[in-house]
């Protein structure tokens, strides 16, 4: 191209505007998509087929509230809790201060648990993806069972009371007027307790209370 054709309307719109954009977008967005397209994709209902013990424990810990908002701790209730909980997580911008990604550097594996891998994100709860770009609080992708659901409830109500010095805001509106957990508190806790629950032998598998493991599987 002569230098004067690089200053004309059509080459600028077609080459810079379209061609370069498509090339860059292919390399940065389309190619990763093609590379990862074979990963098995799970819908929320498919995810909810495995109800983690933490969800059943919540039904034991808060029987009245759980019954009121979610009924029995079955797969349908768990799917509903995941949907609502993830909605809360996005609406309150939790993901602006908590990442969902363990990197293979900076001792993150020692702090949080196994390094993130692509297939664990191939599901409807990562649409859009919530990897995050800022960490004020710790990463949450291995959070399942690290704390009890009780801990989460108290923490949502008043974080510094549980973790002195915490700068996380209080989320009083997750709770009912009498201070008992509302729909949002139960749902977002169920969602957070799900994060990483697919990792074998991770924290949530270890301490289980006998009463929290009901019969049928």
């Amino acid at each position: 191209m002569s230098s004067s054709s690089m200053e004309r309307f059509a080459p600028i719109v077609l080459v810079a505007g379209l061609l370069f954009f498509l090339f860059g977008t292919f390399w940065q967005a389309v190619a990763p998509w093609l590379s990862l397209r074979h990963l098995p994709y799970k819908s929320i209902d498919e995810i909810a087929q495995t109800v983690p013990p933490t969800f059943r424990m919540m039904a034991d810990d808060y029987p009245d509230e759980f019954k009121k908002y979610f009924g029995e701790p079955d797969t349908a209730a768990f799917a509903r809790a995941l949907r609502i909980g993830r909605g809360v997580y996005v609406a309150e911008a939790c993901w602006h201060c908590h990442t969902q990604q363990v990197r293979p550097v900076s001792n993150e594996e020692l702090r949080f648990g196994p390094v993130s891998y692509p297939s664990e994100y191939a599901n409807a709860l990562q649409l859009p993806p919530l990897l995050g770009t800022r960490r004020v609080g710790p990463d949450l992708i291995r959070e399942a069972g690290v704390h009890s659901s009780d801990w989460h409830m108290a923490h949502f109500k008043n974080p510094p009371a549980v973790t002195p010095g915490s700068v996380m805001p209080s989320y009083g509106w997750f709770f009912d007027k009498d201070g008992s957990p509302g729909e949002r508190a139960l749902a977002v806790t169920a969602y957070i307790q799900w994060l990483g629950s697919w990792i074998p032998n991770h924290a949530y598998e270890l301490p289980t209370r006998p009463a929290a493991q009901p019969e049928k599987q």
Partner: protein
Amino acid sequence: MTTSSRDGVCRPLVWAHTLASLAYIVIVLFAGMLYSLQFLSLFPFPNVEFLSPGRLRMLHTNGAVYGFIINGFAAGLYWAIPRFTGQRVWNEKYVGWFMFGALQAAVLATAVGLLAGYAQGIEWAETPIFVDPFIVVWLIVALFQFGIPIYRYGKSGPMYVAAWYMVAGCVWVPMVYVMGNYIPQFFVPGIAGAAITGTWIHDAVGLFVTPIGWGLMYYFVPILLRKPVWGHSMSLLGFWGLAFFYPLQGVHHFLWSPIPMYAQYAAVISTVVLELAVVTVIVNFVLTLRGQFGQLANDLPLRWIYTGILNYAITCFQCAIQVLLTSQKIIHFTDWVVGHAHLIMFGTFGFWIFGILSYLSPKVKGLEPRSTRAGEWAYWLITIGTILMWFDLLIAGVVQGVSWMSLAPWMESVRVSVPFWAIRTATGTMIIAGMIMYLVHIAESRRAPSAGRAGSA
């Protein structure tokens, strides 16, 4: 209302976008200030759902882009395009005012939607899903509104540099916005979706704000200096370098993630190489100023613009260092990135808008821009505040990154950050004070100078 004069500029539209831009930046600054108070455990409205700090953060960022920057740029484009192309925009009376109203409606709907809890989970695209289609339509209409005069002007031969950037920016934005707001939201989940999200985050800055901003600079700088830009081939290198390398960088927002490494390497390399193109642009503008450095002392719009260019150079140089995979081990996820974002979005594009608006505000009334005492206060308060905030967050980022790597208890990284966050709030206070002075300056500069004070520096 189409009170265009012979130069084809619709002055009421320029002034309306100016006012909207200034109104939003005030709201945006207060939202940021409130958010920063949460980090000092001083948030004044705890447990108020609709003023939750998380929601205010999204108001801060989205208001800055869609409210402050788009309106500020629109004011500049409505002034610059008719004047250097000799062509009126597509239509002022209907399209222009429709676009103005639609943009404000979209921004207000976004603000209300975010505070009411209808955010979308994509960074810089938290605009509620029901607002997105309207923004897409708006961007396509804007493509025609500003593209048609450039097309008419460019039909007959080579175009001026400003037109390259403006028309390319107008072509890129609708594609970028649709890609970022729809594909990871509805079609591509997980890691591939994250790659697309990163591409969107980066393109929103690189293929929208940056080209429109540089397009405006290539118009306003020669006008303020009353001479042409120094080197033509430098301009060519800068534009084509940006156009080629910028779209290749999106994944650098997710380095060390499970995204395939070929995408991560391409992002890192193209980010470093882009600095060569950036250097040509910076050198070009500095050499244009050569011999007229003294004008910076009295010409406030010019000083805002060149401070913005200096900040752009700092940010881009910083970018070439921080994008390396080694640096990313420490600074990723920390306040370093927050400082970087403030210096580019506010310290560069915000400063350019302040320069353009302080030039246009008297101009649309037929007055010449002049320096005022309030204008000087505004410049120094905002400049010092922004640079200090940037530097403070940079150091905070390194401290946080090292603290995490050391495996000290998590709360240790929060405790060591608090002093840095306190400084951030203090610098934010300086910026807000400067912003109030800026508004005073705008109001004063639109009054006819009284005989005694005419020409006061």
